[in-house]
């Protein structure tokens, strides 16, 4: 970039001009930071206002633009200057300060004092609290009342302006990391999701390698007698049509199908993966850009359901077995004991599901499946009936119509109920004893056979895996204890299952619960914790074939997006389009491995000695590595340990104990907008906080805490996302990593003879904005109880 030249623009509208002394703000920029281009512009977001900035860019050579106005979450289209050339720093004086702090108030001012105050103020930018606005200074010299800005509000704005200027000074426009990419998508699994993913990617012009472990395509969708409705009005079962999709895949010129394939390894980074796949006895390595993992599900092991009669009574079968029976016999369901057609078929929903001993979750499909199979029973014999016993009938979305249609069949009988016992009589009939039915009493039903609606287990778990509630954390594998200088470290050595990734953190995708690949479930369902690898279909959550196909489309689009953004050197998600990336200054690396261990996305590999190896296109740019590094050697062009440390230094710490200074590190995804919303609602917050925006709390470096506390800052409040099982962190592990790091800060604080509670982390979701004032006040109160920071004034 050309010689850095800052321009500072202060907007005086939206109440900013009334609440703040903008001239004083200007003076800070001019006098303290020696910036030439400093302007207060009314209505800065108007065309004329923005033109002022554009003119300065063109005429004055301004390339670092500091805008003290509204939140960067608004007017982003107006202040949209090319990030490759310009640094744009938005200082949020509107939502975070003016709208959430005390406004100017009417005060009686003796005439003389007013006229004297004005010149004094212009002389020094470090002047005492502003008492006079410029226009009143020219007012006639007589006692009058006038608007006086609030001292704390003004100081808060001044500090934030200083921090903004420093941040701009320390930022450089990023230069994208660009490598050649291969525009080929590897789709693993040829079921409903995989076939759709392959076809959609191919239609979009991408080459596809479809690897299927079996000898036929179609997966479960090809094994059904009938499938659930997949079109409006969602009422009738239909004949499987997966063959059409298989034919389309097989005939598409962009798709190479590898049958009976095994993934030996996947090495490299998005855009440049090398996938080694063996099939037909030969092994080949293919260059691919991204991966769709659609490996589907397996039925829960019914042998574990002995308490429901499975394995004990001949006429107790699973829903999968009934489906096979129907497919083989054109819809006729016969009793396994004697092969006679079953006239009374009972279905037990949630068999081994929503049960802490088996699958604790609902597979969401089985209610529809049982309704479908009940129709097999009544359609092959109109006098036959199907009795469905459920905990809750769950037919999400438009499948409600299917439920209604099936329920309307006279032979399909439904009741809620809890199974008391399942027994067999001498002729092989199954007797169900059910309590809490909606028939109003405990009943017994005699049936020719019983179908257990068993659930779905992700194929992320190997055959015969442990109980899904009792898995090793993150990966299926074995515990291993390693002795290090920090003590014994216990970690899981992951077993390879499907992907065989050549990644430092393990060969498979990490899971969160029950084996399903971890992802930010709400915002990023397909994105796993490995950039470039997208999960689709029942591997990531139980779903129907129709939903799997939809998933296949979604994951294909993600896989394409990944290749395209990678080709431009941009982050894929959640910071889509971000061209910055972490760079390591290796000369000071101590090979401590913290970065390679802590990266939530397995982006960093390492050599034998432990020296990290960056894989930029795997990176999500959260900065967790930057926070983890004790050597402070991991930096982005526009985000670094030094930059934030400098921001902290820019905060003016007054000597008065009545003006404590507290730093709040706020996550840009939740805490920042929460503060914005508090401002929009004009909720007053504590004025002694100084907000520093973090990409993620995972980037919190402990060095800041020691530095800032020694400089007289009273305390640190880290406001981040919820972590652990129900995490909301966009970067999955960021807020958790910050919290773990804070556990280690105690040592630093005790060395400084400070209370550990001076550094506190809170978990806050965006919608909890109304709790912010209390959280902030409580923490300030707590700090007050410790007494002032002894380092203040040094």
């Amino acid at each position, binding site marked *: 970039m050309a010689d850095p030249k800052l321009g500072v623009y202060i907007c005086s509208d939206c109440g900013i001009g009334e609440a703040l002394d903008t001239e004083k703000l200007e003076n800070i920029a001019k006098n303290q930071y020696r910036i030439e281009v400093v302007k207060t512009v009314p209505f800065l977001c108007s065309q004329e206002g923005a033109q002022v900035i554009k003119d300065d860019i063109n005429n004055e050579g301004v390339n670092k633009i500091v805008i003290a106005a509204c939140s960067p979450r608004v007017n982003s289209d107006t202040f949209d200057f090319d990030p490759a050339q310009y640094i744009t720093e938005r200082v949020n004086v509107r939502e975070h300060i003016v709208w959430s702090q005390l406004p100017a108030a009417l005060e009686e001012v003796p005439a003389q004092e007013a006229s004297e105050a004005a010149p004094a103020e212009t002389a020094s930018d470090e002047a005492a609290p502003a008492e006079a606005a410029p226009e009143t200074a020219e007012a006639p010299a007589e006692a009058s009342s006038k608007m006086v800005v609030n001292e704390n509000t003004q100081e808060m704005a001044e500090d934030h302006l200083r921090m903004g200027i420093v941040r701009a000074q320390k930022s450089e426009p990023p230069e994208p990391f660009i490598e050649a990419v291969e525009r080929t998508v590897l789709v693993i699994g040829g079921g409903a999701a995989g076939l759709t993913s392959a076809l959609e990617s191919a239609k979009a012009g991408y080459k596809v390698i479809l690897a299927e472990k079996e000898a036929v395509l179609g997966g479960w969708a090809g094994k059904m007698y009938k499938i659930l409705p997949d079109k409006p009005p969602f009422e009738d079962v239909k004949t499987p049509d997966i063959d059409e999709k298989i034919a389309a895949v097989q005939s598409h010129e962009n798709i190479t199908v590898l049958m009976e394939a095994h993934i030996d390894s996947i090495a490299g980074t998005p855009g440049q993966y090398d996938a080694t796949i063996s099939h037909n006895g030969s092994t080949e390595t293919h260059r691919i850009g991204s991966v769709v993992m659609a490996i589907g599900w397996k039925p829960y092991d019914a042998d574990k359901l002995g308490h429901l009669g499975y394995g004990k009574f001949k006429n107790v079968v699973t829903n999968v077995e009934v489906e096979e029976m129907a497919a083989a016999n054109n819809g006729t369901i016969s009793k396994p004991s004697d092969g006679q057609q079953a006239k009374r078929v009972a279905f037990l929903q949630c068999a081994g599901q929503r049960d802490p001993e088996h699958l604790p979750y609902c597979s969401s499909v089985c209610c529809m499946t049982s309704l479908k199979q009940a129709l097999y029973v009544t359609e092959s014999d109109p006098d036959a009936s199907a009795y469905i016993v459920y905990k809750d009938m769950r037919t999400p979305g438009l499948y409600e119509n299917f439920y209604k249609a099936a329920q309307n069949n006279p032979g399909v009988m439904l009741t809620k109920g809890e199974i008391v016992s399942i027994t067999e009589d001498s002729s092989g009939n199954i007797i169900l004893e059910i309590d809490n039915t909606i028939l109003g009493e405990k*009943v017994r039903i005699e049936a020719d056979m019983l179908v257990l609606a068993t659930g779905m287990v992700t194929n992320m778990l190997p055959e015969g895996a442990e109980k899904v509630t009792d898995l090793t954390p993150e990966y299926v594998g074995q515990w291993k204890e390693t002795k290090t200088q920090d003590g014994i470290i216990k970690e899981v050595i992951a077993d390879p299952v499907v992907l065989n990734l050549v990644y430092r953190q393990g060969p498979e995708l990490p899971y969160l619960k029950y084996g399903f690949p971890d992802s930010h479930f709400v915002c990023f369902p397909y994105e796993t914790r490995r950039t470039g690898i997208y999960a689709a279909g029942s591997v990531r959550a139980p779903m129907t074939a129709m939903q799997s196909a939809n998933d296949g489309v979604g994951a294909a689009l993600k896989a394409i997006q990944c290749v395209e953004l990678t080709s431009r050197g941009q982050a894929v998600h959640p910071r889509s389009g971000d061209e910055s990336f972490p760079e390591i200054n290796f000369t000071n690396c101590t090979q401590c491995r913290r970065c390679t261990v802590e990266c939530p996305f397995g982006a960093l590999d390492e050599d034998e000695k432990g020296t990290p190896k960056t894989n930029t296109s795997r990176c999500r740019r959260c900065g967790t590595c930057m926070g983890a590094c004790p050597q402070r050697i991991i930096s982005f062009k526009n985000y670094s340990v030094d930059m934030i440390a400098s921001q902290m230094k820019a905060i003016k710490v007054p000597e008065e104990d009545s003006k404590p200074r507290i730093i709040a590190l706020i996550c840009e995804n939740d805490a920042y907008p929460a503060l914005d919303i508090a401002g929009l609602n004009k909720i007053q917050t504590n004025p002694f906080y100084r907000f520093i925006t973090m990409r993620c709390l995972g980037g919190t470096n402990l060095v800041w805490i020691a530095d800032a506390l020694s400089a007289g800052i009273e305390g640190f409040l880290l406001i981040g996302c919820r972590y652990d099982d129900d995490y909301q962190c966009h970067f999955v592990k960021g807020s958790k990593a910050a919290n773990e790091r804070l556990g280690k800060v105690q040592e630093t604080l005790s060395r400084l003879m400070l209370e550990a509670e001076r550094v506190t982390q809170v978990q806050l979701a965006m919608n909890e904005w109304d709790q912010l004032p209390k959280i902030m006040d409580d923490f300030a109160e707590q700090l007050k109880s410790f007494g002032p920071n002894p380092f203040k004034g040094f």
Partner: protein
Amino acid sequence: MADETVDKTEETAGAGNDATADATAEETAVTAAETPVAGDASELSEGDTAATEAQVASEATSVTAENVPDVREAMLIKPDVGFVKEIINGGGTDLKKCYQCATCSVVCNLTPDDSPFPRKEMMWAQWGLKDKLMGDPDVWLCHQCSDCVAQCPRGAKPGRVLQAIAKMTISRFSWPGILGKGVGSPAALVLMVAIPVLILLGVISQFGHLTNPSKGNIILDGSGHQIVQDVKTGGEIIYSNFIPIPAVDITFTLAFFFAILAFAVGSSRYWKLLSAHAVSEGGTLKGSGLGNLGPVLGEIITHKRFGKCDETEDRKVSHMFIFYAFLGLFVTTAISVIGEYLLHKHSPYGWNNAVPVKWIGSVSAAAGLIGIGWIMINRFKHAAKIGIGAYFDWLLISVVATVIVTGILAWGLRVANTPVAYTVYFIHLASVLFLFIYAPFSKMAHMVYRTVALVFARVTGRDMGIE
């Protein structure tokens, strides 16, 4: 509930009560107190009142009072698809749409608070639990207000379902059974109409003049000789020439007593099954049937229950019209019979008789006309919201309408001396005969079965009347 369930299983299995049972004793004791001990009603069918195994078993289980877990034996239910289809075909078309939200029971103003209808009946009906429904007096406690039909979020029309079940009750207990089936079946309509028509034709051809009765103006005297009579004040149309009055009276008296007999058989069968069911469910019969008949009749003559309907408020008045019309016509007929045979005052009567029989009859006929017309209009008025009704309803409505309209016309045409009067009179007699002999099998039977059910509900303490 889960713990309790375990206890129950252990109890049944003979494991006795143990520490687990003690732990939940308090909870289970409460449940036991609230839940009446239910027996096994599964094998229960017509007239079967035998004590069940379950009761014996529950008595044999000796447990201390505090530790009484729920010893209910689970009832073996026998779902019957055929019965479900029968209800659907009998007017409960949308039965299967019910998803058990209980809106129906909430909006119903007639249901008792405890185990209210029609929710439970809907579930039993969906599962085809025929025995339960046949022995359930609640089916008749329902007065077809149709509040539930209008409010049901799924359009399952619970009122229509109960009505279909009620119809099946009539058919099931009917004697002779074949008539019960025939009257309920649209396919048998022609045959059913043919029976009273043929009986009447037979009687007329035997005792009257089927062709040109006016020309002869001949009637039979007491000894069977034909006598030519004068034209009297009533004009040339003399119905007694067409069919002699004693022939009419004997035919209809026989029909009347046939209906009484059929009702007696049907209602006693019904009562027996109701009693057996109530006992098997742990209920007791507290009072006598006759003792409770009074208050029930009191409710009937005031139409108290009808008055509770929201959606079809006006049915109370329309039904009252038809109810009192029938009562008035019954009185008219009684007076006429007394007049004819005891006082020898022959019809037709004039307006100025000492006993205002002409007035009573005419006013009743007018009330009947208003009532039945109103009922029909109401049916159309409410059609969109609650449906127009089933074959069973319209069969009775049509017959009653025919009786009333032809009755009035028969009078008018006689006075006007129009020969077509004989045809109309014939239709009138045939429709009245239809009404009489089929009363125990048509919707008309509601007057007996509903009364029986209301009395029974009082006897078991289920429903002591409506406030």
